Each structure stands twice: as C-alpha cells, then as structure tokens.
C-alpha cells in the first residue's frame, strides 16, 4: 500500500543501500500509534504504520474520558460514533457515601468502532501501512531499520515511534524494570443490567487496607453497552495474587453487586479480555529507549483506574509534535519528547518505593475523602480518577479572548503553569493535576491572568520573569482554598484520617511553596502576601462565627482582590488605580461565588467542584440560600448582574488599554455561566 502523497522521496533521504528513508515509522496501530501517525501525516510527514493484520476487536465497550475526547477531537478526519454519552460517574467505596463526578464529559464506545475509526483516519490521512509484524529494530546513522516478518525489504525511517503496547517489540522487558506495581486487567461484556435511569456510570473501588502499603486493591467499571441490558465490566486489580482471570472478573462482579446493587445481577456473555497492565512509567525508561515510547509501551497507565486510552492519545500527540518540531534531528526530537512527556506525566505514574507510598496515600485519600464534598477533596478525587491532561494547560484561558489578547496573555500564563507544575509535581503529582483541573480547559479563571491584566492596565508589562510570582500566586490561591470549609471527623478508624490530613498537609504544602516563590520578588511582595493571608483567615473566622456584616461573598472577594492588588503593586500604580483594581478583583470574587451558587442550585458541576449542601453547611454560601429549592436562582442571578455592573463601572474608570480589555474579558468569563 502506498501513500496518497507517496513516491517523491528526495535523493537526500536515500540511505546507503538505496532504500528510501521515510520520516517516521510507527510500530503498533493501537490508539497511541494511530493518533501519532494521523497527527504526523497531517503535519506533512511521510509516515509508515507497522501493524500486523488487525485481529478482530473484542466485543467490549470502552470508556472515553473527557481528556481522550479532547485528544480525539483534535485528530483530523476522525469520524466517531459513540453509543452513549456519560454525563456523570458515580463513585462507590465500601462504607462510604456515594460521590458523583458531575459533567464527566465521557462516552462509551464499542472497542471495534474506536479502533476501526482511528485506523481508517490514519489511512485517509496518507499514512502508509505495512501490514506486517515487526521483528527487529536496528539503529543506523541515518535512523532506524525495522525488519518485519513477511516482507523481506526492511523499513527505513529517520524517526521511530514505538506504540507496541506493554509487551511489544522495542519495549523494555518487564523483568528488566523496577516493577513496583503489579496490575492486571480483565474485561468482558455482561448481560442482565437493569435499564439505566440516567446517563451516569458506576465505578467501584475497593482500596487496600489502611495498614497495607502494597495490599491488593480493585477498581471496577461498568461501561454502558450498546443495548440496554448490556454493560462491559472492566476490572483492574493491583497487587492481586493469582493468575485466574475468570476469578478476577467474578470478584469484580461481586464488588459491583455489593456496592451498586441497582445495576442488577450480571452474567458474563462475551469473551474475557485480559492481560497485565504496565503502569511503570519512568523518565529513564523513555529516555533510554530506541525511538519514542508512547502509550502502554511507555508504561503510561493510570494505576488506580487502569485507564490508558487518554494517556495513549496524549503521549501520541506529544510524540508527533516533537518529531514535527525536529524533523531532521531524531535525537533532539526524542529529548524534546522526553522532556514534555515527563512534564506532563511525571510523578503521577512513576515506579519507585516512593511511588508505592504515594499510591497508597492516594487510595486512602480516595476512600476517606469520599466522606466529603469539600472543594479541595472533591477536586483531588477528580484529579486522581479523571485527570485532566496537563497538555490542556497551553489552551486558551478565558474564552472567548480575541487572538491579540490571547497572544498577549498566553505565553505568560504558560510560563506560570510551568513554574507551578514543576514546583509541586514531584512531591505531590495529584496536586499538580489538581492545579489544572478546571471546569474545562478553556475556562480556567486564572489568578495569574488577573494579576497580568491589572499590571497591564496600570501601565506595566510583565514578562516571563514574573511567571515565578504568577506561579506562586496560583499555588497560594489553591492553598487558601484548602482551609475554607471543614472535613468530617473520621477518627474512628486505624491510621490517619486522610481527608483531614490532605487538607492540612496539602494546604500547608501549597502555601509553603507559594511563600518561597513569592519571596523571590522581594520582601515587599512577601508582605502583601502575608497580610492578605492573615486578612483572609480573619474574614473566614468571622464568617464562621456568624458575624452579621461578613457575607460569604466577602471571603471570595478578598480571595480575588489579591491578584489584582499584586498586579497594581508591580506596576507601582497610584492609590486611586490600586483601589480601582482591587475593586475589580473583589467584584470578580463576588461573582465567582454567586455563579457557583447558581451552578450548584441547578445541580451542575461547580467551579469549586462542590455541592450546594456543602456550601450552605459551611457558611460558604450566601445567607438565606437553602438546599432543595431550585426556584431561588433569582437571588444569585441578581447578585452576579450587580457584581458585573459594578466591575464594569470600575474598569470604565481605567484608561483604554489591552490590560483593561483583559480585565473586562476576565470579568465576563467569571460571570459567563450565569448567562446560560
């Protein structure tokens, strides 16, 4: 099979033997390989995909998370027909209240439908297919030579991308790696499901014992099937002793039956799809490989859920971009890939003794935190189970920003993210994921943007050197969030109460790192930070104590005043301008709270990722707002309108500038969901 654009291989890419050297060979035609190949071909590269005649796909359904959805949307010419939209995920743990992850943005799709579509899209993008089995990879000065089973002539390419799964060719052998995790996955289609009452999906987790660092743990998904009575049950077991896959599926079914009895008694109908999962990503593994390891081949699998599709698509995309950026320099492409992939995934997936401790911590957290809708815990839960890709951090920020403003703010915010993420990800990767968990990638209301806009409005341009401060500011805001609202008391159990511990230790960690980053801008900025934090705690304590003149919105107003104040101080603005910018920040903070009230009233995912009940119980919601009465929406609506009006009046006091436009866009962005 030849490429639609094939044939014209220039002479300078001929290897010594005269065989043409392609730009890229991709070994493995799964999700990762196809995604990389499609993106490369779309970028104008000459790509060959080495994939044996495709075995028929098992009759199971897959879950496509919102991250995977986003990655798939960016692939050209891909036509997908998912049979189910999954709007929410119900999280069940033994002895804990059920928690719902709203606005999951996920889909269920037939395995064959997804893989056929990816494969077809690769072919129509002009990817050459070598329908054969790779048997050896050799390095040559001009690139890589891949021998395949049937065709005698080797395939020659300058770049190599290895997407051959956890045990394929080009992948370091399991035994040769530090495999601190042992994860096995099985899946099968089952019948007998009760008709679904909504668009939710069930996930059951059986965490390891509190005292057993490497004890067995189970995660079970019930992915809706194409017909009402069918579901695909997928079980991922960590540290499971035993080889019997059928037994593992039975355990999963038992767990589902016990925790989610509403699903009905399920019977296996389809064949069992099973195998080990490799979640042993490490920088060294990817750096030492021949070519670019992507997807399962790189050990990129979520150790808690066993989910690998989103990582496969993300890493495939990163690999393709690295190759396109360094077309003539394979080593540079690999270095760029390693750097980026490590930035995006490091910590959260690596294999080491510390990773074992951290995994256990995450399991405890998942379990204990299920007792609460505290924003810090709810965001953390989401970050572990449905991690939103760090790739998303380079996307537009407050939509819709016009391209000029985007160009002004984009690089600065990306630099802030880099600072923020690299400060915390190695110690607490879930916090790093949490840092970028927004309502959606294009709607993150970044405090750093408010700081930048304020500085610009006051006549000072910020450059990437201020990104250290911007990153510190973001960590400070997230740390402050941890201390708003209480977690339940779980002291009846053995060991630490992880919901409490996560709040305290996580909040302290964020504030501590923030203090260090902020101090690099000097004592005057440190002083503003410390005074702001003291004032915030005083306000919150007054609110808690029921002081009549302290509203809920006063706290969020104080929260958002700070970035505006920092921007004003950086610009050495005059007193009147400082006041105006503070006012704008405060109005943004008020609107933020009332928008969350409105979202919570209508049962949608809030920006704090919490519920109305939690807001009300913790005095984080406005007085008079009560749970269970959706008719109250008028009050927050009026408040949002008023905050926006006051905010606009304040921006009108500023001279016309790009900074003012950014402030207006920020205010609009904060108030936007209210217009729905």
């Amino acid at each position, binding site marked *: 099979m030849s490429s639609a654009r094939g044939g014209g291989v220039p002479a300078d890419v001929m290897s010594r033997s005269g065989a043409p050297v392609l730009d890229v060979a991709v070994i493995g035609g799964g999700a990762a390989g196809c995604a990389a190949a499609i993106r490369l071909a779309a970028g104008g590269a000459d790509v060959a995909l080495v994939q044996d005649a495709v075995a028929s796909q098992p009759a199971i359904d897959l879950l496509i998370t919102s991250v995977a959805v986003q990655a798939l949307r960016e692939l050209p010419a891909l036509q997908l027909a998912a049979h189910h939209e999954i709007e929410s995920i119900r999280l069940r743990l033994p002895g804990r209240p059920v928690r719902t992850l709203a606005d999951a943005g996920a889909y269920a799709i037939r395995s064959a439908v997804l893989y056929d579509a990816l494969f077809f899209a690769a072919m129509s993008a002009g990817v050459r297919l070598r329908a054969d089995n790779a048997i050896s990879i050799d390095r040559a000065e001009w690139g890589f030579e891949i021998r395949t089973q049937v065709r005698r002539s080797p395939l020659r390419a300058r770049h190599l991308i290895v997407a051959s799964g956890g045990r394929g060719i080009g992948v370091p052998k399991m035994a040769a790696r530090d495999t601190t995790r042992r994860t096995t996955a099985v899946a099968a289609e089952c019948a007998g499901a009760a008709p679904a009452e909504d668009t939710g999906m069930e996930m059951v987790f059986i965490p390891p*014992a*509190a*005292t*057993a*660092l490497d004890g067995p743990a189970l995660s079970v998904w019930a992915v809706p099937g194409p017909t009402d009575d069918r579901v695909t049950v997928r079980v991922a077991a960590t540290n499971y002793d035993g080889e019997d896959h059928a037994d593992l599926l039975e355990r999963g079914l038992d767990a589902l039956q016990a925790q989610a009895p509403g699903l009905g008694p399920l019977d296996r109908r389809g064949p069992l799809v099973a195998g080990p999962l490799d979640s042993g990503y490490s920088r060294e593994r990817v750096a030492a490989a021949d070519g670019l390891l992507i997807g399962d081949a790189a050990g990129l699998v979520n150790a808690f859920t066993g989910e690998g599709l989103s990582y496969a698509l993300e890493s495939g995309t990163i690999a393709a971009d690295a190759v396109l950026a360094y077309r003539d320099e394979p080593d540079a492409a690999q270095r760029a890939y390693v750097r980026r992939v490590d930035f995006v995934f490091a910590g959260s997936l690596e294999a080491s*003794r*510390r990773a074992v*401790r*951290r995994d*256990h*911590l995450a399991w405890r957290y998942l379990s204990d935190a299920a007792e609460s809708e505290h924003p810090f815990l709810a965001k953390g839960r989401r970050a572990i189970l449905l991690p939103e890709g760090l790739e998303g951090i380079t996307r537009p920020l407050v939509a819709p920003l016009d391209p000029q403003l985007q160009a002004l703010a984009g690089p600065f915010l990306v630099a802030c993210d880099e600072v923020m993420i690299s400060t915390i990800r190695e*110690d*607490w990767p879930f916090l790093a994921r949490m840092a970028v968990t927004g309502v959606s990638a294009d709607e993150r209301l970044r405090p750093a943007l408010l700081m930048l806009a304020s500085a610009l409005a006051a006549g000072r341009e910020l450059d990437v050197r201020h990104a250290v401060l911007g990153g510190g500011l973001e960590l400070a805001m997230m740390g*402050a969030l941890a*201390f708003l*609202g*209480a*977690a339940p*008391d779980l*002291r009846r159990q*053995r*060991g*630490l*109460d992880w919901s*409490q*511990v996560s*709040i*305290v*230790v*996580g*909040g*302290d*960690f*964020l*504030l*501590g*790192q923030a*203090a*260090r980053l*902020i*101090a690099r801008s*000097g*004592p*005057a900025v*440190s*002083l503003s*930070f*410390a*005074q702001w*934090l*003291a004032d915030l*705690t*005083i306000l*919150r*304590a*007054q609110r*808690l*104590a029921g*002081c009549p003149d302290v509203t809920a919105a006063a706290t969020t107003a104080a929260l958002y005043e700070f970035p505006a104040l920092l921007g004003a101080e950086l610009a050495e603005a005059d007193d009147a301008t400082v006041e105006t910018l503070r006012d704008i920040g405060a109005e943004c903070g008020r609107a933020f709270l009332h928008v969350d009230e409105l979202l919570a009233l209508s049962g949608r995912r809030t920006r704090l990722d919490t519920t109305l009940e939690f807001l009300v119980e*913790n005095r984080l919601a406005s007085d008079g707002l009560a749970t269970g009465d959706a008719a109250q929406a008028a009050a927050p609506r009026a408040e949002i309108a008023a905050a926006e009006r006051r905010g606009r009046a304040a921006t009108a006091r500023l001279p016309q500038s790009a900074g003012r436009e950014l402030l207006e866009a920020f205010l609009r962005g904060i108030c936007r969901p209210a217009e729905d």
Partner: protein
Amino acid sequence: MTDTAAAGTAEFDLAAFAELVSERIRLLTRALGSELEPVVSGLVDRPGKRLRSRLVAICASLGKLSDLAGVVRAGAVVELLQIASLLHDDVVDQADTRRFAPAAHVSHGVESALLGGVACFALAGTEAAELGSTANAVTARAVADLSRGEMLDVERAFDVKLSSEDYLAVVEGKTAPLFRLSCQLGAVQGRCDQEVSRALAAFGGDLGVAFQVLDDCLDIEHAGTGKPGGRDLALGLFGAPILCALQAAGTDRELAGLLLSPDFDGVDMRQVCELVERYDGVVTARALAEARLDRSLDALTAVPAGPGRERLAQLVDGLRGTGA
C-alpha cells in the same frame, strides 16, 4: 579565621528575652480579632521550652548586635511558625491535648484551629518580610522545606520498610528547617559574617535532626508512662527506634506484624517495646542522634569562641543527656 574579641559583645538574659518574644507575639495575634485570637492564645500563653527562639538569641549574640527589637521579632517568627505547626499537627495527629490543656481543635473546632495555624503562618510572614530581604528569603525557604517535610512524614505512614537513612531524610524536612532557620535568623539579626552564618545554619540543621530522633527515643522509653507515644504508632508514624529495629529484624516479621495489625488498640505496647529492645532499636537510634550532635559541634569550630558558643555547646550536651 575569627575575631574572637568581637564575639559575645551582647549577652542575653534569656528569660527576659523569652518574655519580650511573648509580648511581641501577643501584640501580633491581638490583630487577629476576637474570633481568631483566642484560638492561638493558649499556645502563646503556655509556651514550651522556647528552644527555637533561644537559638535565635544566642546566635544573634555571636555577632555585632545592635538592634534588640529585631532579634525579638526574629524570635517571634520562629515561635509563630512553631505554633502554626502545632495547631496543624494536632489535627493531623489527632492529639486531643497539648501542653496539659485541650488542643485548639478540641476547644475551638477543626476549621478554626486550622485557620489559627494559617494566621500564625501569615503573621510570621509579615514579621520576616519587615526584617528585610535576607530574613524574608531564609524564612520563605524554611517554610517551603517544612511543608514538604510534613508531607513526606505522613506519606510514609505504615511503611515498615522505611530505612533509617530515608527516615533521617524525612526528619531533615520536618524538624531541621525550623532549627536551622532559628540559627540563620539569629545570625542575620546579629549581623554575623558569612562563614559564621553558614556554620550556624549547619549546626541548627544537625541539632534539629538529633532533637527529633531523641524525641522518638523518649516515646519508646517512656511508653506506658503517660507520654502519648502510642498514638503515633496507631497512626502508622513509626519513629527512629522502631524503624531501626525493623531494619535489624530483617526476616523476623513479628514486630512488623504487630505494628500493622488492623486492631492496634488490642496490641500490647510492652510487647512492641520488648521487640524494639531485642533489636537494639533505641541504641541504634541514639547512635544516629549522637552522630548528628557530634557533627553539630564540629560546625561550631567555625564560630568564634566565647559565652555564646559555650551556650550552644551546652544545648548540645543537654540533649545528649536526654533520658539517659
């Protein structure tokens, strides 16, 4: 290397100094208002040994001291940070009493206690910022290190395979930074020269590690005598003697089995102590602490001789005697 004549120009009455630090902290915490001030006042009014602010004073006395108020404020920084971590630790460690009174989270509620801790952290930040850029920078570094150490400390819960080396790295994070900061701030306020400042920072770090390891030893030696060492075990936070014993026990899983028992309340503390003794846990841990104390004394050789240095050496000797 040093000018011994310049050393010890300022002598402190440490008791009077402690009172000045308390006054300063009271002044600062009064600004927290009637909701938050009572949450922290208990710990302000019932201070511990004030070891950290004493270090500030002694180290400041080693240099060309001119501004006593600045030293007092530096003392307030480290004591406020200590109060902040106690308020938060008591929530993490589920401790119901602190210094013979109900812990703040018991008397004022968890969220208020946590807010009180954050407020003290913030007040320490305002003080440090007003002490100038060096004091601000070393304080910021220390709080970042401390918060990371706090995290490492809980992350390792129930890890019976944690080596004593890895545990010392945890202690470097959770206890050493505040001791080191105390010495650094003292040196900054006393305007000590760079070499002396560096030596004092090294001294403080080693002293802090030794302090924590010896404290762990006391928990085991005094187990069953009222000191609540058993709670850390219930939480899975094993101290130096236990980790040393676990390491020495090798394939003998008896101690590990006891520590990981799901029903820990039923476990006999005496049995744990016996096993720790069988594997020389306390002896090994004490040796680790001694090594750090020796190293801290080595660091002092770069400090000018005089009463200030004597006092630091006495602090080390005082620790050596702990529980012996």
